[in-house]
């Protein structure tokens, strides 16, 4: 495993590539130098902070409950991130927290309940992190697309409501289209894995000296978990948000158009 550790000197050398990015920005007049430096500085600060905290959480002597509390914090932070990226979607903080918590609970129950991975901090935190982290983008897309579809297609939705259809039925074609869009990106990544790119966990394991076939098995299990988690997230946000956008007497609330 030591072969994979690059140390502080390795990290310092990798800054050469940041210097290349800054130089390119200066050469082309992109005016992104400050942003590149800020992003790199912020990333290393955050990662170091997380790394030192993880040292405590994944220590074999630390009770696993701390790892699960870490997961709760990740859910809250993910919901706050979703709210920041989809601030024009009504009630998004509560709905995204609910969706991410529900999908994480289901996925993690399968993973650790069935013993796919051992219930230890070293497994709980990174696996939950991958599932929750990959869900954020899909939740944002699903939420914004649902609001966008229902706002844009209001005449059709109201024509259906005026025929006596309940909101669940009147919104179905548009919500379905939004959910398909939200899931497409994850499906495409799942299909392209191995052919177009080698995913992070597998790359990390191979760099750390694990047998490539073993790394593939780990990665495949993680991909399936992420896919299941994202699908659950998208469906929960779809159901919850659509219910929120209609009144109990089957009227579509007023919606501001949101850029999907």
């Amino acid at each position, binding site marked *: 495993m030591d072969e994979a550790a690059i140390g502080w000197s390795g990290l310092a050398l990798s800054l050469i590539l940041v210097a290349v990015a800054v130089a390119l920005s200066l050469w082309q007049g992109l005016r992104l130098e400050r942003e590149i430096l800020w992003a790199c500085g912020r990333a290393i600060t955050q990662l170091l902070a997380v790394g030192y905290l993880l040292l405590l959480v994944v220590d074999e002597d630390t009770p696993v409950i701390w790892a699960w509390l870490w997961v709760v914090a990740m859910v809250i932070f993910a919901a706050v991130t979703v709210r920041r990226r989809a601030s024009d979607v009504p009630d998004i903080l509560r709905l995204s927290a609910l969706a991410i918590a529900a999908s994480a609970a289901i996925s993690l129950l399968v993973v650790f309940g069935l013993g796919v991975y051992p219930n230890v901090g070293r497994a709980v935190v990174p696996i939950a992190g991958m599932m929750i982290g990959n869900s954020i983008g899909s939740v944002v897309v699903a939420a914004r697309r649902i609001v966008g579809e229902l706002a844009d297609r209001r*005449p*059709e939705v*109201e*024509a*259906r*409501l*005026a*025929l*006596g*259809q*309940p909101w669940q039925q009147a919104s179905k*074609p548009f919500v379905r289209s939004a959910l398909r869009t939200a899931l497409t990106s994850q499906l495409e990544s799942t299909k392209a894995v191995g052919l177009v790119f080698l995913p992070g966990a597998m790359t990390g394991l191979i760099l750390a000296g694990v047998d490539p076939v073993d790394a593939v098995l780990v990665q495949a299990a993680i991909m399936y978990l992420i896919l299941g988690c994202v699908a659950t997230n998208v469906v929960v946000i779809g159901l919850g948000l659509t219910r929120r956008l209609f009144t109990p*007497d*089957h*009227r579509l609330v*007023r919606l501001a158009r949101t850029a999907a």
Partner: protein
Amino acid sequence: MPPPPTVTTRTSEASARRPVGAPLFELDAVVLEIDGRSILRGISLAISDDGITVLLGPSGAGKTMILRLLNRLEVPTAGVVRFRGESVASIDPLALRRRVGMVFQRPAPFPGTVRDNLLVADPAASNEALLAALAGAGLAPTFLDRSADDLSGGESQRMCLARTLVTRPEVLLMDEPTSALDPDARHRLERTARDLAAEGRPVVWVTHDLDQADRLADDVLVVIDGRVASADERDRFLKSERG
């Protein structure tokens, strides 16, 4: 032969010709505010149970919102809306909307054929029922298997009317249904509305077109600035519209 009565004479006679029993619709001191903006300002009116009642007034007067209140696509901020004497708030909204059909200003065809569109209104409707709805909207049976996307504006609006007729509504609400149509399609749809009213299905028709109101109305209510116009306001509006 005396000239046909005009909107002016009809509005003057309207209250005298109100039915003795419960009106088809009643608005009682209805206020409607949307996003803090006042749309209807304590409006009270009654709509009779036969023929075509035209809601006439300038754009932005609140006519469309009155129609939307009648089949509960909107709910009043204050006041009561009644359908055949019963508050619409106490009627199941889905049942109410099937009894009170609505055709919107712009046609909203659903994907698929005309048959697919009609079946959205009633998935169990028989072929005969679909053909009857098409006939009611003035469309030939051959339209049934045409793609809804290929219809002209007038045909599409008729299909939307047929789709509404599939639910066998007791009354039809028509919100400026001819505003996007050419004169020929407009006159054909007006004739269809007259036929439906003559068959005993009352129609509430919204327009800002005085000539259309003259051609269609059995009864006229002039709405200005979220209220039923006073006699003076109505006369001023009619005069300005007549140029």
